């Protein structure tokens, strides 16, 4: 092996030392550029949708009476650039986005960007909790199902995961809330903290972490208990998806010669699973985690509104039900970009895990 520290000349690097780093960087660069193009596409979508709105933006902003006065309407149009061609308006919109300006919510009358910045940590807290839990449970159940293929366990897991995918999330959230809070009083009520607790000093915005930083153990426990139900509902949905994918991925790997060889030479099952099977299955599993994150973000919109969880999901619900377009577009943009980012990270991890991916392209 040649140390990469002293960079060999170009010709040599293609043959030896540079080979490990170079194709990955090229692959990464290509993926980053594709994602940036998609982000621009996402802004185009939200812009087109904003302009598709039936109805007069002047009337919507100023009220019908002011809009009927041509002088006021013209000044409003000039002030907000509505008299410019659509292309110019789009670039103005892009420029505003780059400055973090997502418009003003017609519902809260706050800048959408600051509303979203306040709501995001709340959503991240349940989304991270749910994705971690569902990956752990999904990988375990999927591996078990693959190993017990054709046996009763496999079929039970198949029915359970299909049922998990079939439950309307918003309804399940309501039912659990009704049973565990309203009837049994086991779970705490809605929101992120009980009323007799104050939010911990903001560091990350995640109450569980901030309360630990502040050394407030009781606040931490209260925050965790409030997380329980929303995280559970979101987890149930993604677990179904993950279990089925992990099962298929593990079955594929079990059929590979190297996994057969590992089993044939008598390695303990635990070693075979951890060092051979799950390593081999990690790429398809990663893909589906990326996809599951998308359905998780969709799920938060429906679940948060039930638990009065002050995240971007509740915000989206409020904005959508009051037809607050800047708010809805802001959420769409934010979630679209988050989803792209997660899938970019997944793709980059691919390249790291599997040399074939970066060499093939």
């Amino acid at each position, binding site marked *: 092996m040649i140390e990469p520290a002293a960079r060999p000349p170009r010709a040599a690097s293609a043959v030896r030392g540079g080979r490990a780093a170079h194709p990955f960087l090229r692959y990464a660069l290509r993926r980053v550029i594709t994602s940036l193009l*998609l982000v621009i*596409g*996402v802004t*185009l*979508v*939200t812009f087109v*949708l*904003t302009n*598709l709105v*039936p109805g007069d933006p002047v009337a919507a902003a100023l009220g019908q009476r002011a809009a009927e006065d041509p002088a006021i309407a013209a000044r409003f149009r000039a002030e907000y650039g509505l008299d410019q061609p659509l292309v110019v308006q789009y670039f103005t919109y892009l420029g505003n986005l780059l400055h973090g300006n997502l418009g003003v919510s017609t519902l809260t009358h706050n800048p959408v960007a600051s509303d979203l910045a306040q709501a995001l940590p709340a959503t991240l807290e349940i989304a991270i909790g749910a994705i971690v839990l569902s990956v752990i449970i999904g990988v375990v159940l999927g591996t078990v199902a693959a190993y017990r*293929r*054709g046996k009763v366990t496999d*079929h039970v897991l*198949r*029915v359970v995961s*299909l*049922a998990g*995918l*079939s*439950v*309307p*999330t*918003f*309804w399940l959230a*309501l*039912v659990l809330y*009704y049973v565990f809070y*309203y009837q049994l009083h086991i779970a705490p009520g809605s929101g992120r903290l009980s009323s007799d607790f104050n939010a911990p000093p903001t560091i990350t915005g995640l109450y569980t972490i901030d309360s630990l930083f502040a050394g407030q153990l009781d606040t931490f426990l209260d925050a965790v208990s409030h997380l329980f139900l929303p995280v559970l509902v979101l987890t149930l949905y993604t677990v179904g998806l993950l279990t089925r994918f992990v099962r*298929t991925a593990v*079955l*594929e790997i079990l*059929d590979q010669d190297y996994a*057969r060889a590992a*089993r*044939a030479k*008598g390695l303990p*099952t635990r070693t075979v699973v951890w060092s051979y099977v799950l390593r081999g299955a990690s790429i398809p599993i990663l893909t589906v985690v990326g996809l599951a994150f*998308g*359905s998780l*973000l*969709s*799920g938060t*919109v*429906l679940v948060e*509104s*039930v638990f009065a969880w002050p995240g971007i999901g509740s915000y*989206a619900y409020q*904005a*959508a*039900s009051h*037809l607050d*377009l800047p708010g*809805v*577009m802001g*959420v*769409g943009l934010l*979630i*679209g970009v988050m*989803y*792209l980012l997660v899938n970019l990270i997944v793709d980059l991890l691919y390249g790291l895990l599997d040399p074939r991916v970066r060499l093939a392209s």
Partner: protein
Amino acid sequence: MTPRPVITTDELDPTDAKRPRWRRPRVRLGRWSAPLGIAGALVAVVWILVAIFAPIIEPHDPLAQNLAILQPPGQGTLLGTDELGRDVLSRVLSGARVTIPLSLLLVVLSVLIGAVIGAVAGFFGGWVDELMMRITDLVMAFPTVILAMVIAASLGASLLNAVLAALIVSWPSYARLTRGLVLGLRSSNYVISGRLLGFSPLRSLWRDIAPNILGPILVLASLDIGTAILLLSGLSFLGLGAKPPTAEWGSMVADAVQNFDAWWLGVFPGLAILSIVVAFNFVGDALRDALDPKANTLRRGGPTL
């Protein structure tokens, strides 16, 4: 766990033809997935019949506000009444008339649009392919519910707009699938020999390719009916679909939040959604087993029935 020092041939290749027929996993899977699929199909058929005959079997008018309000189930009505004195059972039954036809329509339209776009992209390649696939990339860059929500909100809240929004987010998966399948078949010998015989592209697509890619598309479509129902009722739950007083399951669940003590208002429409989505998912799963044996058996040596 007991250590197993000896590896038998069974473990090395569980689909080995040496096994007695009744022990082959494929047969066992069939034994399990077929009944689930049949049960699912039965439930789905019952719901479709309910959708057709709802006006006849409803005990009350689903919109009439003429009963005692907020009666619990079993006291005069089977599933109770809501805050306006409407019969919950009649509303749940009548909800089938809204959700089922619309979600079937949604899936059929998504398949048609997606398959045509995907087939054209895959068959002709070049810039057509490039353009169409970039558009699908763009749509798929959003999580479905979010994009549907954004579109439905800007179109204005109505059931048809919700279907339109759902359609815009649902066709790309069919376009992707169809394109992949067409690409795989385009250069196969029988398609090429058809082209050499002078088949037009359309005839080649229709006669040689379409029959061979129908299976996977059907499987995806059958699994998608459940997703379509969840998406449409979710949009209605968010207030972006059905308008009151329409009896629609998602909006019934949303209305139930106002009267939390009356649990029957939300539980039954939710159960309706759950039962029909589970039913369609079981059917789709069984169909996949039947049409795509690869999904559940090992590739090598697996019996191909």
